């Protein structure tokens, strides 16, 4: 796996640091509200039965994101 990737490529159990949020608008604000900004650690916790959305651990909470949205979040796998 490349070192620089997008959030949707994380497999369950993998952890990463957020590099940047691409695009603007509603999603960006929502994510910021939840504390997802640059350098926030995230972990992929699981995938829903039909493969999308997936669940991520963000600052102690479990948040489900659609692939469409999570691929706008650039991360560095750790």
């Amino acid at each position: 796996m490349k070192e620089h990737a997008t959030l949707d490529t994380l497999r369950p159990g993998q952890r990463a640091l957020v590099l940047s949020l691409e695009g603007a608008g509603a999603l960006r604000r929502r994510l910021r509200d939840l504390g997802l900004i640059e350098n926030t650690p995230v972990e992929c916790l699981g995938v829903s039965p039909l493969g999308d959305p997936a669940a991520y651990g963000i600052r102690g909470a479990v948040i489900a994101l659609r692939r469409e949205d999570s691929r706008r979040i650039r991360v560095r796998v750790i």
Partner: protein
Amino acid sequence: MGLTKSSTGRRAGADLRELKRQSGRQKIVALAGNPNVGKSTVFNCLTDLHQHTGNWPGKTVTNAQGLCKSGTWDYLMVDVPGAYSLLAHSAEEEVARDFLCFGGADAVLLVCDATCLERNMNLVLQTMEVSRRVLVCVNLLDEARRKGMRLDLELLSRRLGVPVLGLVAREKGSRRRLLAAMDALFAAPARTGDCPVRYPAPIEEAAARLLPLAEEAAGGLLEPRWLCLRLLEGDEALLARIDRFLGDSPAREALFRAAEAQRQALSEAGLDRDALEDRFTAALIGAGEALCRGVVRCEQAGYSHRDRQIDRVLTGRLLGYPLMLLLLALIFYITIAGANRPSELLMALLFRAQGLLEALLRHLGAPPWLTGLLAEGAWRVLAWVTAVMLPPMAIFFPLFTLLEDSGYLPRIAYNLDRPFQRCAACGKQALTMAMGFGCNAAGVVGCRIIDSERERLLAILTNSFVPCNGRFPTLITMLGLFFIGGAAGGLSAVLSALLLTGLIVLGVAATFAATRLLSATVLKGTPSAFLLEMPPYRRPQILQVLVRSVLDRTLFVLGRAAAVAAPAGALLWLAANLRIGGESLLSLAAGALDPLGRFMGLDGVLLLAFLLGFPANEIVLPIAIMIYTAQGSLTELGELSQLKALLLQNGWTWVTALCVMLFSLLHWPCSTTLLTIHKETGSWKWTALAALLPTAAGFVLCALTAQGARLLGG
């Protein structure tokens, strides 16, 4: 399924303008916090108001209010919807923000989740910018302890400069501790220092330049520093709101003009709207991190091993869907099996009482028409509704509440998001659909948890495609009478439950079809960002669930049905007995509807019953029975077997029963739901569409079924 007095009754959506201090002893306290941190539990614990609680974010969508007295003060508690931030991004967050910023509360009680304290700090810090009296209440300490977290709340209190109270709101003694903390909050002088968040220098400098003007314009009604910061940020909706709130004055105009200039300057220095928002959030989150450093000591990660294991099964690729269906069927099975005997007993008892009532009325010298009106009209319909609805509801509601309390509902939304995404809709529609099982009107109000206007409309318009509790009795009765008649006791309940689950799946499939149709035609658009928080699993408080759901939901829903059923029964009796040219009004109307009814597998009586059942779905079947008995010879109706005989006498076959079920599943929503839809959408056009869509679907499906059965010689 937020279905209680406080969520559907008069208190729902309490208008902020109505809030007035009743006396000098009264203090208004806003109860705020992130979604799903136990605000409603704290609210209930303080006010005994039985605000419905549930383990999923977005349950409280309007402000609820209740009173509690400490001896020193009378506190008017206002439970505002959950919000992550005061930079509002959804309809419910706007309700919260508007109340906290402009509602004129004397203090804010902020409920935080001990298991993710750091994230809660964002809202805490923002609230401290708007309010001088803040009490932070760290709830769910027990869960944090179970996760191996240790919290130093004294340190947090020192750093924040406001009192911090650790709490397990569900435990006894919480009420006393909360009241004592609130009394202490009001006994101490209001906080004077600024909030512990500092923004980057250019922002602080611009704010400092605006501050004198802001102090003058705010007139003590708004916090000046907060006002400056928001004016610099320049959110149009919030600016308009502030504009309205402050009204026209030279001071306000001067402030707005100066703010405009400062914004311009910031923008030229590279801090445009987006960049400003980034800086604001980054500063808040940074401050939250710093605050919690050393306050939270954690021995393991947030998402517990136990939850991980449960989720692996319940949202797993293989078992996710089967388990969802199985759980639904299990709930129906327990409901049907458990309600069978009590329903029969209750019916026998209540119909025997009808004889007593008649005898009593005759004894009192009441004329025959009055006896008929009260006993055969009002009482019989009331008795039917009670006997058929009470036992299943008293079982179904607690079961559903257990599920809701456990945290499983958001997992349903998680599992079902993909198909909703295919319909260009929001996965949270699964939650509003689940609320629809309780009451479609409550489900429609619940659609406020969906941020995007287009997706919210999709959810509102399709909510009545799943049956509410008013329609379950009709479905269960039809199944019991016509589809599993031969099966032995235990097996028949299993079969009923499976068939009912099948019907629900049909309703859900219809929901998807309708959603897809709408988003391909009148509500075109791309799905917006989707973000769903999945709370930790919690062990439901079984006893409390039982008491609450029986007392609050069951009796409330039954009361509402009875309030419609009794007068409707009396009116119907009149219509059945008032004759024009030898024919009763009802049979005339039924006769006129007969051709259309027959075409769709029903008859005129049933179609009329569905029409007259507009105020409440519960009374559809009783109306049909009343019209049949008024026409036919059978007058005693103490048991279900007699009911079947009556229906057969009137030409029913299994096809009729099937069409009744289909039409019950798919027809116009009841009047309460439609009025709610109008209130929520503000448009008669959407309201009409919400009625037409399921009706058209039901009509087509019934007609196809009836004609198909006819072709096959059924």
